[in-house]
């Protein structure tokens, strides 16, 4: 299981967000460059359709692959009340022939994206991961070098933390608490529940940049 919230931020404020995250997390950022391929089952395969995501980490000298299945969200009155999405997730590291494997099983490529940006991973009541990326689409199949932004000027911020049935409420509390620190710069909410851009983001970003002595180009 994992807890997850998402939000969007204007690219011009990403540097300020990075300064804020650096101060809060106390760990260095890591580069993100992931080629994400979303595969869906062919027309006759499976009693119900299924979807799987293949993630190729291009930030390392040798690309490595992970396969990920995102399951259903927790439901019920309790789930409605919390501001964090809790969902099942299964992941596995896999060999580099995973794409050929799933094609052979009867899966088809639905869409692909190149996600570029940075990530902070740290412990704060839970093992929290904050990823800030721009989503880019490829004009030709698998052409990661020719990717262009899907939403120029806007980047996605995602906060996730692994959870189990026994401890998800503590993890939810840890994630919610952390989100409050980022409130001046961005709204974070359940995926699919868009809250838009924070009106005070520009002022907050300017404050962060002047406090850090950094200059926005």
């Amino acid at each position, binding site marked *: 299981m994992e807890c997850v919230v998402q939000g969007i931020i204007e690219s011009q404020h990403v540097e300020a967000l990075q300064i804020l995250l650096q101060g809060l997390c106390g760990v260095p950022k890591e580069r993100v460059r992931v080629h994400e391929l979303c595969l869906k089952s062919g027309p006759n*395969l499976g009693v119900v359709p299924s979807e799987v995501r293949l993630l190729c980490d291009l930030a390392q000298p040798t690309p490595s692959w992970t396969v990920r299945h995102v399951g259903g969200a927790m439901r019920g009155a309790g789930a409605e009340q919390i501001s964090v999405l809790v969902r099942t997730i299964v992941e*596995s590291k*896999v*060999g580099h022939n995973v794409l050929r494997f799933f094609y052979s099983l009867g899966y088809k490529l639905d869409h692909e994206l190149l996600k570029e940006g940075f990530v902070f991973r740290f412990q704060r009541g839970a093992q929290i991961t904050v990823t800030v990326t721009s989503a880019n689409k490829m004009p030709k199949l698998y052409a990661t070098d020719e990717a262009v932004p899907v939403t120029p000027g806007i980047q996605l911020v995602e906060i996730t933390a692994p959870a189990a049935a026994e401890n998800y409420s503590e993890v939810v509390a840890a994630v919610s608490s952390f989100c409050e620190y980022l409130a001046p710069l961005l709204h974070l909410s359940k995926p699919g529940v868009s809250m838009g851009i924070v009106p005070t983001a520009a002022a907050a970003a300017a404050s962060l940049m002047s406090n850090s002595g950094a200059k926005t180009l």
Partner: protein
Amino acid sequence: MPNQGVTLTTQILTEACQCVESQLGGAKDGRWKTALTYYRPALREASASGDLPRELLGVALHDQLGSYYFLLRAHRLILQADSSMQALMDKLQSYKPRVVLNFEGFQYRLGDFQVRVGKCVPSSEVLRGIMMEVEYLPLSSIEKSRQILEDFFDIWQDTVKKRSLPGHFILVEPNFADYGLQDHYTPQHTAVQYATCMTQLMAAVRN
């Protein structure tokens, strides 16, 4: 492979283990277990399987508990994954496990060799086969160790004959290159050997 008219029993397995211990002087080194799972595609329309593979094989090896291997024999493809991959396939519900075969028994150390002798038991618990896995520890090159392993197998056949075991062992010789595997031996080679072993066992049972 049991002789014609002979039923495979655990007694034969016990005798094979005793060959390793008494005749060859093997030191018992614990138990082992490998599981093979045959998956079939779940189809919305049973009659329209199209290009879908009829069979997907999953292998959980005795000494690679954190890994799982998927084989598509028709495509000569082997995929290495974490053990969580089994749970992932279960979530997808596109391929469902139909038959599970457990290989389990004892392992022995004989000098530079590690030998595993065990039974092949499906979930129905009827003994289907007896198999043996021989590992030559000093070398990782398949070509360089080929002669040594063949010599070991010849010694084993002689030992088994002297013991009047009601059957004989058949050497499994998969084509690793078909799966894109190199000369350097890896757990993926072992997974391919189990898949090939099962193909031979099922062909023998049919005959």
